[in-house]
């Protein structure tokens, strides 16, 4: 599910240590916190999974 989802990253404007994972799905733009490894680098696999989980939550919530 959501196989075509890809994300980019950006550092937060106000808290530069915080990294957002950014993606667009069906015309809606999303940002959720990226998952970092022990060295502070973005863990791409875990972050992609998180993006898909977040998207699933957003699309399936009733409120």
């Amino acid at each position, binding site marked *: 599910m959501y196989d075509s989802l890809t994300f980019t990253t950006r550092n*937060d404007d*106000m*808290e530069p240590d915080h990294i957002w994972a950014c993606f667009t799905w069906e015309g809606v733009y999303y940002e959720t*916190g990226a998952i970092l490894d022990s060295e502070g680098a973005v863990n791409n696999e875990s972050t992609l999974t998180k993006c898909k989980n*977040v998207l699933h939550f957003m699309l399936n*919530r*009733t409120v």
Partner: protein
Amino acid sequence: MPLQTSGQISLNEIHVEAGGTSGTACNINESDIRGLISASSGAAMDFADWYGASSSQAFSTIKAGYSFFTFTGGRGSTQYGFNAGLDADGSAPVGSQSYTGDLVVGGTTLGTLARASVDNVAQGRHALAIHITGTNSNSGWTNVTCTRISNSAFTTFSRTADFTYSYADGKRQYITAAIFDVAESLTAGGSTSGKHCKFWGDDTPTYPSTGTDSTFTGKIEFS
């Protein structure tokens, strides 16, 4: 825009900041002008009192719309949930707020608050949703604190640590993850028929029921 912080300041400038029309008659004891510095009627005031005063603010108080409902959970158990706040979805009324101007945090204009609601999103879990009108910009504030006015119960949420951001329909939309009720970040009153929103809405609920607060029960403030 806040008034200047030094030098000459005119009554007309104060009047305009308070929402009046430039050049029209006014006096220093008018409630909207006094309101900029929270002065009571007839109080002694100095023009310097208005240095830095602003009609904009970073908070609003909320008369929540709410709906309390039950549903069947795992193993046939009765579960209790609610939607409560400003523009709460589900069957809840939309509620209202005290301040409908642009929220401003540290000189940065965020936009108007369109939604601040705590909603049932899963069995035993609720989420906080905040919508702000404006352009697509996930920035301008660091924390948001939601408070119940009557007992000062509050929770502070971090924009970066606690929210997922999305942009749709001209609104900056923030939502937390589904937070377990037992954490009591969003709910209070236990897990059964006393369960209610920690910040706003009826705190002595009847299940099921729907209504709107008669007074401003909650406050949401950005910093």
